[in-house]
């Protein structure tokens, strides 16, 4: 046995053997079925509803609506994923979103506070709510289920109290633009095909492909085996094609909605945080084995606290987006949101035991739910059976996951 180097990050000996990807196409696909399976099911579901709705699903107007309808669920799912990965749950997000929407209405409509300071106050309030709940969970060790169940009741009641039991609105136009506005058109005359939106879609698609290629080149230059090149090319062509196509569709209605830009930015940010940063890694470690994480020097309490603060801020943002979309704060806002958000995470492959889950999975999960809602409504399935079907899809998705893990 060779002498153990004293330097912690010593020079490596021998060739790194990264045989994670199987080197042939079919084997690679089956090995990574779990990763791509979710995306595949989203496409299958979309294709199915595209057919049964006679093409209504992917009409530019409907596609825009789909993005708007699901934006607040996706935004909250980003925070919920981190909470679930760290081994907790947050049942209060719906009530918090509703409460913050009401707070915004009171500030903006009743006290005439301008949009920007009001939004900042609301986001800070969301963070404080998250901190208050996170404190009990992280430092006082009260089960998160109970703390956030309490929070759910508290903030639902608080919302009713500050609204006085009635709707408050309408909002000024600046605030409405958060949800119903579209990015300004720089090229063209603002009618017909919105060229700026198409251009942004193309640029984003190219940027993603370029990032993929850069990562691949870096891995290859370090002698790490990568996915088969045929697969890589196909994947990038599909990614670029789908993004461009969707941006084209959306551009042919009224262009990119503001909220979609915010949502995509947040998805990118949270995907980066969870996959690439120390904080992200440590959150997975806490969920994977709390004691081992603690004994490895991870500040488990502080990080758990942080995930709840983060969740509070995102719930507040979602509350603003939802209030802006309805153009009023109603006492029913946020009702049942937590269920859609949590379902999105679990459909997207997060584990109820913590430690497992991906941001992209949660986003896909949210859109699976969203497409089903939208598609079933267009087809004319009543809200009663919609619930039944969504429930069964959630159960089925998690069963498949459990089965895959046992295999």
């Amino acid at each position, binding site marked *: 046995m060779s002498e153990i180097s004293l330097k*912690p990050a010593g020079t490596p000996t021998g060739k790194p053997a990264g045989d994670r990807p199987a080197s042939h196409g079919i084997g690679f696909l089956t090995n990574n079925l779990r990763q791509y399976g979710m995306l595949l099911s989203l496409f299958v579901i979309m294709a199915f509803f595209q057919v049964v709705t006679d093409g209504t699903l992917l009409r530019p107007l409907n596609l825009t609506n789909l993005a708007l309808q699901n934006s607040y669920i996706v935004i909250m799912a980003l925070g919920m994923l981190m909470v679930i990965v760290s081994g907790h749950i947050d049942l209060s997000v719906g009530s918090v979103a509703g409460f913050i929407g009401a707070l915004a209405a009171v500030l903006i409509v009743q006290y005439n506070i301008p949009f920007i300071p009001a939004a900042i106050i609301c986001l800070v309030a969301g963070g404080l709510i998250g901190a208050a709940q996170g404190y009990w969970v992280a430092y006082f060790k009260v089960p998160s289920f109970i703390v956030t169940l309490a929070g759910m009741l508290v903030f639902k009641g608080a919302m009713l109290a500050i609204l006085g039991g009635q709707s408050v609105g309408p909002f000024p136009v600046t605030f409405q633009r958060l949800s119903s506005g579209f990015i300004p058109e720089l090229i063209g005359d603002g009618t017909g095909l919105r060229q700026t939106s198409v251009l942004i879609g193309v640029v984003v698609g190219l940027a993603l492909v370029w990032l993929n290629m850069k990562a691949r080149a870096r891995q290859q230059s370090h002698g790490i085996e990568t996915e088969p090149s045929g697969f890589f090319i196909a994947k990038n062509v599909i990614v670029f094609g789908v993004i461009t196509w969707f941006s084209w569709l959306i551009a042919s209605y009224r262009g990119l909605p503001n909220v979609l830009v915010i949502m995509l930015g947040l998805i990118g940010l949270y995907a980066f945080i969870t996959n*690439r940063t120390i904080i992200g890694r440590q959150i*997975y470690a806490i969920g*994977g084995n709390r004691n081992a994480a603690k004994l490895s020097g*991870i500040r488990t309490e502080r990080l758990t606290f942080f995930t709840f603060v983060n969740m509070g801020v995102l719930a507040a943002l979602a509350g603003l987006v939802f209030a802006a979309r309805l153009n009023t704060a109603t006492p029913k806002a946020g009702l049942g949101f937590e269920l859609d958000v949590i379902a999105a995470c679990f459909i997207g492959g997060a584990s109820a035991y913590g*430690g497992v889950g991906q941001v992209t999975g949660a986003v896909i999960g949210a859109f699976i739910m969203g497409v089903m809602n939208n598609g079933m409504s267009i087809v004319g399935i009543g809200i009663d059976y919609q619930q039944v079907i969504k429930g069964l899809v959630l159960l089925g998705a998690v069963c498949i996951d459990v089965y895959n893990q046992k295999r």
Partner: protein
Amino acid sequence: MDVMTEPPPILEMRNISKRFGNVAALSDVTLAVRPGEIHAVVGENGAGKSTLMKVLSGVYPHGSYDGEIIYEGEERRFSTINDSEALGIIIIHQELALIPLLSIAENIFLVGPPSRFGVIDRSEVHRRTLQLLAKVGLSDAPDTLITNIGIGKQQLVEIAKALSKQVRLLILDEPTASLNETDSAALLDLLVEFRSHGISSILISHKLNEISKVADQITVLRDGRTVETLNCHAQVVEEDHIIRSMVDRDLESRFPKHTPRIGETILAVHGWSVYHPQHVGRQMIRNINFHVRKGEIVGIAGLMGAGRTEFAMSLFGRMYGQNITGRVEIEGKACDVSTVPRAIAAGLAYVTEDRKHLGLLLGEDIRKNVSLANLGAVSARGVIDDIRELRVADGYRSRMQIRCSSVYQETGKLSGGNQQKVVLSKWLFADPKVLILDEPTRGIDVGAKYEIYTIINELADSGRGVVVISSEMPELLGICDRICVMNEGVFVGEFDQAGASQESIMRAIMRNREQVL
């Protein structure tokens, strides 16, 4: 001794062998208990005592072991613990199986309480509980909650529960390990009284003085074999004799040769005291001093529950205990080790005895486990450099000879030895000055043990201080430059390599136990 005049044994276990995978836990063990006797079973940790009792009580069902059990004249094949209990064989485990928030009466009659049409007859339960408690000398009310009585009384409640099941053979696994002197004496008196009523007992204990007080026969187990059975009435049994037959074995060349290069003191602990995390008044570590020098491998020997792990974990970021007092110096400078991040920053590393629950992220790959305690070293501005991380993990994979398909393999799918190497890699990557290794070779096969010993030697040679906590005395004797013996939260002896032997260590422990009692 004339066999013909003896009554036939109530229990005879013949040629019992039990394997776990490739490890033989018991080989050809024989045990004969006569009616109305107290039969002591002694042996080191891991000698097979508990396994033997689990075979007897049906925890390991018939068919999972070889050999036969003759009880009350017939061969018995127990497939569950209920089968053995039905015949009056009751086992009381070291960790009591009482439910803390139920009352004494509810615990005693947890299974099959007296009832009418499925409704529990509470006055009958009360009446019978009072009778049983009187038999074991307890005067507490039957509706007292278990959590409100001390550990000694809980032990007696367990025995009352056994009596409620018409016990004929009572098995006690280390019953006095956590009892004080009065409670221990009361319990032993009870066993003697049971003997006069014809109830046989099997007593598993480390406390040789107690055993020589009450036992009629003593069976010594070592490495899963019966060494001998001593009749306390036919001969005078010396404690030294028992100790020698408990530990005697040859050391062969199971340990790599090593010449230590010992330097100045690297870790010094002064006046360290720790109290139990739940029981405020129970002091687990009593004002101890400890030091390790550069290049030195120091062993901490002791029986289970001596306080070794508690000492190590309280030192490492106060991960155990409360009201911790004392000073820690590393390389002559006072250090703050009050949280794990601070302890790591000060240069400490603690490799846990329980790698599955406290050491590894079993669902994550080798790479992520290796970097976990020192993520800063593979990152820039909080962002992990995956290539650097991979290089580090691959480096340890080849240096430690971790056998795996790649560093992307899940650690949960590795063998025990390879898992241990991953945990060691994690702590080496944290670049500590002092490593505390708690049972570093538990559950690891002989070949992997040798590799771990080699790594330990190299760690010491690199100028680190190494502390090894182990229940396997030959291991400590084989690799340590100095051995400290711990008992009841204090150090009761210290031996250099030349002066240490299994007998001297065991004697230090036993001598202290007698002083304490």
